[in-house]
């Protein structure tokens, strides 16, 4: 099993997970676990940055939907930074564009978190690598 890592940045107390270029059956499971683990760093709310993501199949959607449901169940939420055109298309067809709170920049996403970081300032960043098993490295 390859050691898949997803970069998680803490931006003013909110975990921001960078999603990979392709989300499919080979990494969707690990991404879901990483999202669930990251939610624990903040106050239950996290941001998934999909700006690099060009491809996302139903396995990837399953991971995103599942992670958001869990975040909401714990009183938080999961916000998205807009993916590329290809993935936006998938969101439109699946109707998820009406369901996921989605923003064009990280700054806007953070501004929508109640009591959280406003603006895009990255002065206060701690970088973590979250491995597939959730352990910090």
């Amino acid at each position: 099993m390859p050691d898949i890592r997803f970069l998680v940045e803490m931006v003013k107390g909110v975990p921001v997970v960078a999603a990979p270029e392709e989300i499919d059956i080979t990494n969707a499971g690990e991404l879901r676990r990483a999202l669930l683990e990251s939610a624990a760093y903040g106050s239950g709310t996290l941001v998934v940055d999909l700006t690099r993501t060009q491809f996302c199949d139903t396995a990837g959607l399953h991971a995103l939907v599942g992670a958001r449901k869990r975040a909401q169940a714990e009183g938080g939420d999961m916000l998205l930074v807009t993916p590329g055109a290809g993935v936006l298309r998938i969101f439109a067809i699946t109707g998820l564009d009406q369901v996921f709170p989605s923003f064009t920049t990280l700054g806007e996403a953070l501004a929508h978190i109640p009591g959280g970081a406003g603006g895009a300032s990255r002065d206060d960043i701690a970088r973590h690598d979250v491995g597939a098993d959730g352990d910090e490295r």
Partner: protein
Amino acid sequence: MTAQVEPTSIEARLRAIQSITDAALSRLDDHELLIEILDRIREILRADTVAVLLLDFSAGQLIATAAAGLEEEVRQGVRIPVGRGFAGRIAAEHRPVILDRVDHTTVLNPILLAKGIQSMMGVPMVARGRVTGVMHVGSLTPRQFTGHDVELLQLAADRAAAAVQSMAAHADRVAVEALQRSLIPSALPAAARAEMAGRYVPGSGVVGGDWYDAFTLPSGELCVVMGDVAGSGLPAAVIMGRMRSALRAYALESPDPAEVLRRLDRKMQHFEPDALATVLYAVFDPALDQVRICMAGHFPPVIALPAQPAELASIATGLMIGVSPDAPRRVTTLPIPAGALLCFYTDGLIERPGQLIDDGLERLRRVVVAQSPEVACAEVMGELVGSEPARDDIALLIIRRRPD
């Protein structure tokens, strides 16, 4: 006191061992082997009865499965709790037991007493370090079973345990295959005004989360369903089976495609909260001159009018199944001229890594032509799949209103 060993008894013992380990036994199938071993051990040990009880692990009971001279045990479905009675002790303690005297204090099974068995000996059957059953022999006259007798019985029990293990594994495989086959899309119905053809290629194994379904309602309407459950392999297929069945039930209850998908969504969210799927549900009028389609996160069909380039049908989108309760659902009605063809599919057909969705859709659009659905299926699969192994499940269903 030294035991006197007669040469003939060693020979006899060797012959007995050979009888049980005989290579010729390997030519029998597992069931025949079990019966043969029982007969041979009864003969070798000069016993009146022999029986095999197999362990039902989850129930913690031994079940009488095969016997010679004691068929009543099997026919009456005798079950002995592990730890109790003669066979139960053997299974619990994982070691042989000899009973010089059989009575209600030493055995639980009334059949043994009714038969008049006076002495018994039993050994555990073990496969891969775990007790899988018990084999025992009995004598109608009082008798003292020896250590040698126990060794011979254990040898026979080991052989029988291997045969039983093999039979169980085979039974499991047969059951799984039957289940998988039951989940593959069923045959397409014959319809007076429509021609249909389909393709189903799972990404791995025998069946996955994609499906198509087509059936007629008592009203004469023809329903077509395309679906894609997130996930792969048998687990996704099991969820798919439930969705397919539920949708058929709701289709019978409501003439409104939006209501059918709403009920399906509610059912899935309640009973399978982690499940996620795209579904397309289409209801064709009996004359096949129009179709009402409701989509839940699925790709729209490609429609080709006779002698015209195909297009992606313009249908109102809707939320995937399994995301959020009470999502709004809309129905789009499409007119279908005579000779027109519709191509329904799942995303495995048009998605390729490193390729935009729109490229795959365009390739599909260009290859679909209003013609015989069977020919159209072959051309679609040839152009979009070719010789690449499918990464994801592919389901394809093509339907044409017969030309006038």
